[in-house]
């Protein structure tokens, strides 16, 4: 009985974890609607849901004469960033889950 209960709990935890990993990239993608090169002129820390990497770091860098520019490999184009974040979240989640199972749940450890 206890074992079945524990198995159900684990199953629920796994579903919650997978859902949170899958939802997180979507949240981030919505947080970066503008191109980074335009950010310093437009963004401020008062804008809703802007990432502070853009609103604070970008703003002060521009103020001190070093505005940010596009990365060398620019994945911030259309839905590409969403795809990359989703893939990274899924792979990261898989690695965490796989190793957590190995370390904390397998009996021969």
């Amino acid at each position, binding site marked *: 009985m206890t074992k079945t209960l524990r198995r159900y709990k684990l199953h629920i935890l796994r579903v919650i974890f997978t859902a949170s990993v899958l939802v997180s990239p979507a949240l981030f993608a919505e947080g970066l609607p503008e191109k980074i090169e335009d950010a310093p002129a437009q963004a401020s820390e008062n804008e809703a849901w802007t990432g502070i990497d853009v609103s604070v770091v970008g703003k002060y860098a521009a103020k001190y004469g070093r505005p940010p520019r596009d990365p060398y490999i620019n994945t911030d184009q259309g839905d590409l960033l969403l795809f990359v974040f989703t893939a990274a979240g899924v792979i990261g989640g898989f690695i965490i889950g796989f190793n957590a199972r*190995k*370390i904390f749940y397998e009996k021969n450890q």
Partner: protein
Amino acid sequence: MHITEGILPARWVLTWFAVSMPFVGIGIYHVKQRKRQMPAYLPLVGMLGAAVFVFSCFPIPVIALNGMATSHPCGTGMSAVLLGPFVSVLVAAIALLIQALFLAHGGLTTLGGNIFSMGILGSFSGYFAFKIAQRCRLRLFWCGFLAGMVSDLFTYLGTSIELGLLVIGKGGSFPKAVAEIFGVFMMTSQGVLCVVEGVVVGFVLVFVYKRRPGILLQLGVIKDDKNPAQV
């Protein structure tokens, strides 16, 4: 805290790389040493590496004094307590490199600076906060809480210092710039998020203690796995 491509001038790019690389090298050496002593060490490094990667690009919406913003925790406090500060720097460096290469997050020229703030300052401050809390005989949860919170604060202090250094030679005041940027970080989101990160690290340590206390014992995080009072 990710400093984007193009923000740091060449002299600071080189300086931060020169400061960070020895820590990464020592981290690699520590991993090689520890994996021989403890079979579960590599899976643990893999798990915490992935956790630091996910944590540090996981934007959490926060409503704080300066309005609504998203920001991310760092995870280096947790990895520093469990893996040691040098290995935590290595783990942070790998996470930041992948983010700079594929996620348009941070930058390749600013990688040294980002490793300094999140990897070095975050890991060592979290590690020492944990050790000091243990010496004060706080319970494991609160030791983890302080490690997570302090590492988050120091990471953002590091970023503030790196940005504040840009005013040197332009007639600005360095301490004033650092205080201003750090204050904005705290008011915008990090004042709330550092507490959240502390709670997460505290719960993770308690979970590991309850599930596999032997791991904490082998890693040297706790001295006695038969003493429930420390949880």
